[in-house]
């Protein structure tokens, strides 16, 4: 299926940009006429993925985070969040609830679990030393439903 609208966003992985990025994606999703709950779900999932780029992928440095999103005719939004950071050695393990490599920073290890529970689909592509791409997909029922 071909997207009927797309957008791209690129920004520095500074924690202050966590709110910027989730609000920007939510503003793009607004054209699907989502409910408040649906918008909150999208914001939360995006916030998890972007935070992971900042906290884990780039650790002690500021790297660039790339977001692209597309809207499809069946009211679906697909959001890709990409970093060129350290990558994940074992994606399956990383996605297990409560698994975290940064417990001392009060990370709950629930980022992926939150994404999975709020989105219809979560796909993670990662290569050690190269980076990670998280693809979030959600079909919005909108206010008509």
């Amino acid at each position, binding site marked *: 299926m071909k997207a009927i609208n797309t957008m791209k966003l690129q920004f520095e992985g500074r924690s202050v940009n966590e*709110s910027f990025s989730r609000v920007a994606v939510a503003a793009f999703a607004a054209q699907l006429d989502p409910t408040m709950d649906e918008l*909150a779900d999208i914001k*939360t999932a995006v916030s998890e993925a972007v*935070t992971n780029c900042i906290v884990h992928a780039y650790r002690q440095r500021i790297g660039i985070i790339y977001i692209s999103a597309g809207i499809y005719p069946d009211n679906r939004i697909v959001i890709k969040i990409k970093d060129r950071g350290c990558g994940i050695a074992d994606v399956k393990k990383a996605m297990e609830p409560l698994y975290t490599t940064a417990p001392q920073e*009060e*990370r*709950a290890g*629930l980022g992926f679990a939150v994404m999975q529970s709020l989105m219809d689909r979560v796909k993670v592509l990662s290569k050690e030393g190269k980076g990670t791409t998280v693809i979030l997909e959600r079909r919005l029922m909108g206010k008509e439903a």
Partner: protein
Amino acid sequence: MGVQIDLADKLCIARIIGDIDHHSAKEMREEIDNAVTRSGAKELELDFREVTFMDSSGIGLVMGRYKLMQETGGKLHLVNIAGHLKKVMMLAGLDRLAILDKPERPARTANEEGGKQHESDQHDETAV
């Protein structure tokens, strides 16, 4: 954005204001912990009424404060959690960790989720 602290006797009330994410959680955590340690409070109440957004960083914030209170033999209460916040908290099982109180008066968004009637009966249980 931030935390408003109210101290009374052995009770510390922390009203959290704004978005809770990785960026804001650090400062909130420091403010709350400072107030608790300085006052020697035996009960900590986190009030979420004015929280506008929360991701799993908020779960980390609650779990960390739970541990802090446990270390001193104190108690943690969470109040005014409605709508989206509740969804994220339940997902993490925080209702089993801390005492999740019912909103003092029904918040407008509290019942919008639907289909989760069991929630309201679980709040008063203290576990772990």
